[in-house]
């Protein structure tokens, strides 16, 4: 579905952030929710100042931290939701910082971007990943102190995890997605207690 069609059907596909918070409170979240931050500093409907929370330069990264904290608290504040939800925080860019790890090759999905579209004058077959970006998996079922190392997680892991969990992997998808890692084994610990897990006090 093209993005224009997505936007045209916005009411069916997208909700507002306040709706997300309200849905968390009453436990009416859909099986899968994708949350985007605000990309602009702007005046709110009530006249207040709203800062961009996307953490792109030159936006204040603190606001992104507040935004993530709001999402976390909304889930954490509902016991039933907290015990059945995995929150995955991911970034699509690395912020321009140096990374000593060379981007590895990856399975292609058969699509090649043409030179006119890549901005480099050369085609790109999506056969190589980019530099590393952070990913934080939050759930009471993640074992305390877990740091994942030595495994390659990429963005195709997200649809692969969802397909494996909800459809037992029974769906048409590309080789790249089917052969990517999933997050499921990281969610296999015993449920942790409240004492171990933080709550965020968010500044107004």
């Amino acid at each position, binding site marked *: 579905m093209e993005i224009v069609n997505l936007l045209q059907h916005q009411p069916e596909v997208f909700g507002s952030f306040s709706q997300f918070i309200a849905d968390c409170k009453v436990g009416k979240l859909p099986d899968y929710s994708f949350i985007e931050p605000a990309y602009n500093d702007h005046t709110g409907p009530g006249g207040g100042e709203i800062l961009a929370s996307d953490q792109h330069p030159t936006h204040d990264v603190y*606001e992104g931290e507040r935004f993530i904290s709001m999402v976390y608290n909304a889930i954490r504040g509902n016991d039933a939701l907290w015990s059945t939800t995995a929150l995955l925080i991911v970034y699509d860019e690395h912020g321009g910082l140096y990374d000593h790890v060379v981007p590895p090759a990856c399975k292609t999905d058969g699509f090649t971007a043409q030179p006119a579209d890549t901005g480099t004058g050369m085609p790109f077959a999506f056969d190589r990943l980019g530099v590393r970006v952070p990913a934080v998996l939050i759930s009471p079922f993640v074992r305390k102190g877990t740091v994942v190392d030595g495994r390659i997680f990429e963005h195709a892991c997200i649809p692969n995890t969802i397909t494996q969990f909800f459809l037992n992997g029974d769906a048409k998808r590309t080789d790249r997605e089917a052969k990517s890692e999933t997050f499921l084994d990281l969610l296999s610990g015993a449920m942790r207690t409240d004492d171990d897990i933080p*709550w965020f006090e968010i500044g107004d």
Partner: protein
Amino acid sequence: MAKHSYVVKVPRPHAKRFEPHRPITDLVRNQLLHLSLAQRHLPREHHHPTDVYSIKTEGEASEFIRHVTAKLHSMKGKDSKPPKKNKPRKSKPGKKASRTKRKGKS
């Protein structure tokens, strides 16, 4: 909060960080262009009066995005169709030469 023994404070950024006059990024520019296309599915009276290409700042972009988003949501459940494209005129029977050919362009 008594229920949570491990509380982490998350501060609010300084008030001076608010910069709605900051120029928009290419990311936001693309979002605006997509929304302006989506806006074509709305009745004309619901269109935002601003030409999307004249938007320069984050504050202006947000106003446009908020307006179009609200209108799209207000049309929920209603049939919205894109404006009809002007069909190319059919040449009348008997006229052999097309307009392009008459001008002699290749």
